[in-house]
């Protein structure tokens, strides 16, 4: 059985993205164990000169290293990823590289009709940056629009079409994780590029 991290892409107390990950966690419990990870407590990233990262971040990085993959669910603030998620990813790529070659699936929920489409496109670009270099599942988008109306009181998605779509994507992700383990040829150089990436050695 696979083990995944479900990264909640916001620091908000109430979040339909958290709800979506909780749904995924329980709906696919026979296929994978999923641990939800919060980003709320992290300080604002400020490129500390001694390259130190907070203990919380180190623990998060360790868990991501251990996991087979990461599912990130992002809201959309101002056409982009929330600052709090960008902040978490900045910390998680500062002298530590838990995302390099890590399989990642992106989901997102929004109150309106677009379902965080633009934030997801940004997130793909961000995860492609040299210090992150995640293996993002291609051609897969899960946009949950009108998310306040999307769940019933038992936290189940009410639209069977959405559930079917998510089941398809999740089954693909499990295969994608295995596929990625075969994509070893660039791994060495990816890792090296991330480690060599330095703000100062120019």
């Amino acid at each position: 059985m696979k083990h995944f991290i479900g990264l909640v892409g916001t620091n908000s107390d109430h979040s339909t993205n958290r709800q979506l990950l909780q749904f995924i966690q329980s709906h696919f419990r026979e296929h994978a164990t999923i641990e939800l990870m919060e980003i709320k407590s992290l300080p604002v990233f400020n490129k500390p000169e001694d390259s130190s990262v907070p203990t919380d971040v180190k623990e998060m990085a360790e868990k991501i290293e251990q996991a087979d993959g990461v599912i990130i669910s992002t809201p959309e603030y101002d056409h982009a990823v929330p600052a709090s998620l960008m902040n978490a990813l900045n910390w998680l790529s500062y002298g530590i590289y838990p995302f390099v070659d890590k399989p990642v699936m992106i989901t997102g929920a929004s109150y309106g009709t677009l379902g965080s489409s633009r934030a997801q496109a940004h997130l793909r670009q961000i995860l492609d940056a040299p210090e992150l270099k995640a293996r993002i599942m291609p051609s897969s988008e899960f946009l949950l629009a009108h998310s306040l109306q999307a769940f019933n009181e038992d936290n189940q998605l009410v639209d069977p079409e959405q559930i079917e779509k998510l089941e398809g994507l999740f089954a693909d992700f499990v295969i994608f994780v295995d596929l990625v383990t075969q994509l070893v040829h660039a791994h060495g150089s990816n890792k090296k590029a991330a480690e060599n990436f330095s703000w100062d050695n120019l």
Partner: protein
Amino acid sequence: MKFVGIVGSNAELSYNRKLLQFIKTQYQDLFELDVVEIKDIPMFNQSDDQTNTAPIQQLNQKILAADGVIIATPEHNHTISAGLKSVLEWLSFKIHPLENKPVMIVGASYYDQGSSRAQLHLRQILDAPGVNAIVMPGNEFLLGKVKEKFDENDQLTDTNTVKFLQGVLEKFVDFVRLVNRLEARKEEPLPKEDLYVTDTIETTIECVDMAAEDWVEQAAAKVNAVEGDTYVKLNRGILTVDQINTFLASMPMELTYADDNNQFLYYNYTKEAEDMLADRVPGQVGNPLALCHPERSLTSVEWVIQQLRSGRQDVVRVHVPTHGPDKFVVHNYQAMHDDEGNYKGINEYILDFKPIVDWYLQQTGLRLEGEIDAGSGASQQDHGVDAGSGASAKA
């Protein structure tokens, strides 16, 4: 023209900060640039609204008062810094100071890209409905390999880059004029001002006739106001009331305080009305602003207060040539704000600054060019704010 320059990084060493500081000094003939930092702004969290804290409100006020904004963005992980994104989230949550504000994007990065991807993201973010800035199209300024670009005095060394940047900034100044002309047309009329003070605020001393000649004495008795050698704790210091009076009396200008309820509360009374640049008499203190101005100038008074209260202007200045060529008299109506940025009234200071100019010219050997035209009108003629609109003892 006044711009705010936002340093898009909270790092201690930032080349984007250097870039803005360079722009500020190198192109000071084009505009005035106030370089602001974002490091005191907390991480945005919609469950913990901190819109009304000092750092966010100060930035809000500065942006509202500026003609345009220049944002210098670094690139972290192919996008803008989390710190800058957090600031933009605060500025699009409960308040929207960037709405219809002309914005220009510049950016510097250590590598070749010069923050190209971050700049594109930033454009999309500034276009979002809650932000709604008007971003200057085209005219990208990408400063790559930035560590090689500045000399030890933080000056850009490449003359072509300096020339190119000048061209882009000149276009931005034109762009700001264009946008402001578009926006001026649809500016909402501002709410009426209560010049007769029919309402009270927290600090109003109630049950004393505001028009009374001895309002000060009556009001002081009412609230047991301290005086004489009683100590008052201030930010930052302690003075007695006598010392405060001595201090304010020594200011080389006529100072007047009107609160945000449009009540005239104080002036630094040192001279009789006939010796003042704008005449005041002790009995006027306490008046609603309508009572200490002539009827014909109340529209101008209202216009000035509306500008200051709304934040459209931080200060309204009027030069008053009627004192003749021997004086350079300017009436300044400066908006006052508390730590949270709330409008708190007008600090009106009136001075003849010719002695300062004369001294400066003598010290530096510089000379004023052109004739001093004592007959020219006040600069705010459109709104009828002229020499006659000041508070007047003859009203």
